[in-house]
């Protein structure tokens, strides 16, 4: 279903090979910096894929997705803080730097927040839904700014990444491969999800909610589950991000980050699995390299985005679709 034409296969396979070999190539060329740059790309890709589940498959235009990334990050940060200070959270939850504890916790907490926000927001639809998800994300943003103990506006520095048996997160190359494997696993999970009964219902709800109702399915429960899964994925990305940058701040939850994630999904192709990965790579690489030429690269990015929306809304993979049809 996803890789139905030659061109997409070529792009995906060559892309995967490049990603797998990247640390080797980068070290060999003496540009170790690329490893951390691409780790960031992989993490953002994970967040973007989780957003694509909502946007591209579920038809849920959530403008507050960054909030869940931030929440995942803060779980890591807060647990780290309480571990480093050797003082339990709320008096009884011990801190931790163990990735096997921290990462699942981040996913769980993000999922919980997504459940509450989703339960309220999904009572609305259309423009209301869009605005409400944005507003809730802002609320969470302000909440974390108010948490003075964890740095408030300035954020919180971690001085070490999480620990995990047999591996060393602080080694950039090892961390890169952990992230790569996480991304691949997540994409595979979403691939199965979308083909499953649940996935078909969600896609049906996005296309024609009225018909889903008359078939006897209550759309609300499924939309909510979709929202929660997306939020959990974002939380996972946030936890990885906190580990990578060894820093968390409310900026991770700012709505502009939500917007950037949406741009990544759009450029690559909504409703495809690999599109968001390509989109995130494009966006970050553009930011890195265009940013070297002019600090005002956004002034070009803005109109380009408008043009893409108006003329090529299916993104890169959509263009490949067209090419495949013409060739095939």
């Amino acid at each position, binding site marked *: 279903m996803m890789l139905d034409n030659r061109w997409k296969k070529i792009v995906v396979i060559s892309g995967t090979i490049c990603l797998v070999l990247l640390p080797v190539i980068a070290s060999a060329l003496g540009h170790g910096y690329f490893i951390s740059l691409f780790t960031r790309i992989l993490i953002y890709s994970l967040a973007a894929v989780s957003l694509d589940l909502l*946007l591209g498959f579920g038809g849920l*235009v959530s*403008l507050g997705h960054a909030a869940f990334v931030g929440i995942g990050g803060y779980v890591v940060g807060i647990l780290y803080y309480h571990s480093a200070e050797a003082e339990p959270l709320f008096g009884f939850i011990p801190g931790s730097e163990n990735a096997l504890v921290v990462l699942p916790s981040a996913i769980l907490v993000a999922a919980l927040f997504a459940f509450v926000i989703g339960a*309220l927001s999904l*009572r*609305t639809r*259309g*423009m*209301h839904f*869009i*605005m*409400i998800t*944005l*507003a*809730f994300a*802002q*609320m969470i943003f*302000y*909440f974390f*700014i*108010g*948490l*003075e103990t964890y740095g*408030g506006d300035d954020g919180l520095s971690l001085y070490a990444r999480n620990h995990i048996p047999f591996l060393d997160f602080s080694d950039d190359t090892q961390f890169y491969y952990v992230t790569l494997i996480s991304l691949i696993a997540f994409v595979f999970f979403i691939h199965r999800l979308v083909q499953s009964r649940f996935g078909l219902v969600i896609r049906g709800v996005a296309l024609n909610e009225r018909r889903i109702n008359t078939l006897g399915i209550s759309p609300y429960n499924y939309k909510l589950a979709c929202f929660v899964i997306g939020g959990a994925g974002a939380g996972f990305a946030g936890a990885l991000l906190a580990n990578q940058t060894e820093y968390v701040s409310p900026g991770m939850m700012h*709505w*502009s980050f939500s*917007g950037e994630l*949406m*741009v990544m999904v*759009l450029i690559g192709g*909504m409703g495809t699995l690999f599109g968001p990965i390509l989109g995130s790579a494009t966006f970050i690489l553009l930011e890195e390299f265009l940013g070297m030429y002019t600090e*005002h690269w*956004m*002034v070009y*990015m*803005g*109109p*380009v*985005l*408008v043009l893409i*929306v*108006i003329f090529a*809304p299916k993104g890169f993979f959509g263009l490949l679709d067209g090419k495949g049809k013409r060739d095939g």
Partner: protein
Amino acid sequence: MLLFIEQLLNGFQLGITLFLMSAGLTLIFGIMQVINLAHGSFYMIGAYVGATVVGATGSFLLGAVAALGAAATVGMVVEFLVLRHLYDRDHLSQVLATFGLILFFNELTRMIWGRQPLFMDVPAAISGSVELLPGLVYPIYRLVIIGVGVFVAILLWLLFSRTRTGMQIRAGASDRQMIGALGVNINLLYTLVFGLGTLLAGLAGVMAGPILSVESGMGESILILTFVVIVIGGIGSIRGAVVGALLVGIVDTMGRAFLPGILRLFLSGSHADSGGAALASMAIYILMAAVLIWRPRGLFPAHS
């Protein structure tokens, strides 16, 4: 007590700013069914142009006129070039395209005016304060803002319920093809409505200039508040915009003024301050959530 009234008036004044923003936005939402994230950019344009002209000429009146003109003109150009292609598209496309506009305008202002915030002086004639009640001294400028807002609200009400253009606009909202068939130029109508919406945003911006700082990104903070207003008030409804704006303005202002003090009764000093500030920032969103649970379509949804 006097502090209470003073903060209430401040809340009113913020409410007026929010009303001007949300009236424009709710019109665009309700009539053209398009979601425009870049609405805050016109607020910003109003503020920047106003500040620049006032700084250059010393005349607030000129600055205000320039601000309104700039906001309306840029608005209509944007409508013609961009929005027009989005009316029939889905909400996500509209969100993404208008997000692109935000990126563009924010960066443009940084390019033209630099990163430092601009300052704008209150016009000398109304820069003083007046004693409203014994012991309560209140800036005249803020009273003027309230006055202008009420005046605009009345004008809008007259426009939409009493004039033919207003009827056409409301009719265009419910049936675009029909009204086109009746010979009304729908494209022109939409451009004008959009221009009106952005003019109101520009007005809000130029009036807010002296009170807040004029900087890139100022549009987005007010935009999110505006969204909250519209969610609470109901999409497409001017009445909803009035009620929502006043509610949000007052709750937000009073919350910031009094919550830290209230919390200090229960918590220690610094916790109370930061907790209070955080809670105050969250107050309107909590209000929004509460309204949503009770009325998912807002307090006064326009029938569509």
